[in-house]
């Protein structure tokens, strides 16, 4: 899964000659202290991750065998509607799935060479908020109203870096400054209710980046924000990424955010990745009907949109998934019942473009039918 073209995109912002090398396929091991640009160095690699919940309706396969890789300085967007398993994916990476009822039943999550699913809970506590951190959706609930900003930003730094007193406070102020919070010294003493929504979301961001993580998982971080504040926040995340070279996993249902932020996209449906490619391929040449429909069902800002295309039906209930291709009941294509019963595989159709090939949901199936056995 080496992304050549994506490297080029981020590279545009840099002028150094080094970045040019990074767009070649050779694995770059040169560390220049985290100075941005996509390298081919993989920080996070997820293989066949499976998370299930035991409920009274039966076993819910919330994440059903997904695999992806995240490179240094790259932004991966995981897109899907609610119930598609994107948030459970992020919780599984952090090993925060509530258990019971949830269990990670299989797969690997390799972060900087270590399988997070195999290490002890004690080691995992060090990883959480250290090497990998999570920015949650709602800043109103992500911050504790009873503790000051200083306390909440400092908690991670204290635990992971063991700092105390003045050095700790300096670190806290630095973290708040890095998310462009004005007069950070005073703000550090404030409580969450004293800040506006945009400021609060920045504080959540400061907690996320305070420990110099290799991976940030941002779970719909801007859904509760206004357009202008959202714009500023997204710009800020990009700047931080350029400064630190952190890999970001963006979990969203909004293709606008994907278009603005992401280098690569994985589209999830019913717990599985149905299509993944670099962002331009996804927008210019989507193959799966679900991806197409998601992009076309959003009105465009740039021109008057004709009648919107709509996806028929509802997102499926995960405890009652149709056998075989789970998108078949909502697909606009014509197919036989036999085709719908085949469980499709994710296949690399062109370089770096993976699609779940099924007669039910890929129009040009015959073009690629050689790639699969069914």
């Amino acid at each position, binding site marked *: 899964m080496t992304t050549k073209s994506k490297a080029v995109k981020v590279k545009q912002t840099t002028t150094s000659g080094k970045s040019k090398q990074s767009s070649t396929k050779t694995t770059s091991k040169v560390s220049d202290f985290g100075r941005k640009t996509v390298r081919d160095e993989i920080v996070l690699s997820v293989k066949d991750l499976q998370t299930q919940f035991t409920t009274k309706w039966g076993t819910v396969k919330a994440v059903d065998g997904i695999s992806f890789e995240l490179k240094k300085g790259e932004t991966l967007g995981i897109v899907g509607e609610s119930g598609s398993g994107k948030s459970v994916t992020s919780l599984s990476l952090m090993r925060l799935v509530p258990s019971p009822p949830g269990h990670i039943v299989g797969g690997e999550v390799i972060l900087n060479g270590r399988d997070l699913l195999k290490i002890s809970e004690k080691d995992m506590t060090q990883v959480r908020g250290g090497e990998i951190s999570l920015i949650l959706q709602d800043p109103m609930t992500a911050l504790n109203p009873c503790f000051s900003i200083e306390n909440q930003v400092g908690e991670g730094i204290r635990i992971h870096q063991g700092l105390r007193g003045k050095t700790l406070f300096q670190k806290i102020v630095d973290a708040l400054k890095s998310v462009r919070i004005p007069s950070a010294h005073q703000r550090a003493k404030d409580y969450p209710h004293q800040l506006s929504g945009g400021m609060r979301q920045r504080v959540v961001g400061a907690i996320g980046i305070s420990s110099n993580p290799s991976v940030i998982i941002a779970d719909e971080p801007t859904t509760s924000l206004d*357009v202008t504040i959202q714009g500023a926040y997204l710009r800020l995340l990009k700047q931080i990424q350029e400064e630190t070279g952190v890999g970001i996993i963006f979990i969203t249902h909004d293709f606008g955010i994907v278009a603005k932020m992401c280098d690569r996209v994985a589209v999830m449906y019913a717990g599985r990745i149905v299509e993944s490619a670099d962002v*331009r391929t996804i927008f210019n040449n989507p193959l799966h009907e679900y991806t197409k429909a998601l992009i076309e069902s*959003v009105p465009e*800002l740039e021109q008057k*949109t004709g009648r919107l295309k709509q996806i028929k039906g*509802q997102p499926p209930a995960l405890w009652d998934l149709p056998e075989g291709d789970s998108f078949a009941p909502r697909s606009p294509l014509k197919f036989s019942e036999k085709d719908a019963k085949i469980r499709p595989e994710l296949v690399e159709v062109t370089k770096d473009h993976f699609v779940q090939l099924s007669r039910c949901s890929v129009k040009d199936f015959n073009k690629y039918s050689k790639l699969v056995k069914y």
Partner: protein
Amino acid sequence: MTTKPEENSKSPVPEAPGCNTASKDAILQVRGLRKWYPVNKAVTFFGRDIIGKTDLLKAVDDVSFDVAIGETFGLVGESGCGKTTTGKLILQLEKPNAGNIFFEGEDVSKLSSAGMRNYRSSVQAVFQDPWASLNPRMRVNEIVGEPLSIVTTMTKEQIRKKVGELLEEVGLNEYQANFFPHEFSGGQRQRIGIARALALNPKLIILDEPVSALDVSIRAQIMNLLVDLQDEHNLAYILIAHNLATVRYMCHATAVMYLGVIQEMGETEELFNNPQHIYTNALMSAALPSHPDIDRDEIVLPGEVVSPINPPPGDVFQSRSPLDVDPKHKYASTRPPLVQVGKKDHWVVDTPWSIAPENMKVKLEAR
């Protein structure tokens, strides 16, 4: 722009900039609408709160617009700009401090109780959150049938039949009338809300963020349903939204609000193709692109949204303008009116610091 209430409810609707009473058949005309909430300023004195002087939160301040029959009027702006309060005032859920609402040429504040009942059934609402706007203890039959049983003299059997028809119309099935709201998904619940709003054959529906709580794949279904219903029943909508793309898709005319004041208003396509006000341009530049190749330069306004408590006496936008504000200019201390742009249906607050210079104009280009 302020209007004196007339004696007779049939009196002609006053003129206001941006409101072209002559050319259009307007169903709803809003003139000089104002909603100021008193806010008590607490003063602490030896640990005790003493109520000091009262501040005014100017949620809606002198708003005038027309809604044409069978068309959609969009109100856009950031949270706290007064768009929802405007909707509440029209629904008579709040009483305005000043200003008038004319429905089919009649002043709503002077309606008789029978006229008011008629108004309330002609103007309906669909709310943002379909999880909160439906009573979980009532069956769909009761939710959709309630307005019918209150206003009309229909029998239970007739109501049941009508509810079945309404559900079919919004894309649900008749047998689902016996279900409770929790048995439906978000999109289906919003359909129930729309069916309830349609029950009394309204002429105007106020849509307060009708799709923002829904899943992406469901949004298109609901937007298309609303457009179809509009064509079928010749409904007028007031769409309150913060998503500009939704507004461009649904609305015929659009007003951009900031701090309780309409900053720019006009025919939607004209407004999007030629935005004049810096604030409108800033909103458009910050909106998310529809393709990764679209890379707009963002116009960043200094500061954050100002509190609507005791806003500046003149132009409300002056504290956010990136241009120099002349404190001696007359609009720094008096409210500027809307001024027509060219000869088109396009109106903007015209002060030296609110009109975007060429380098701040956003060109929305499709890829």
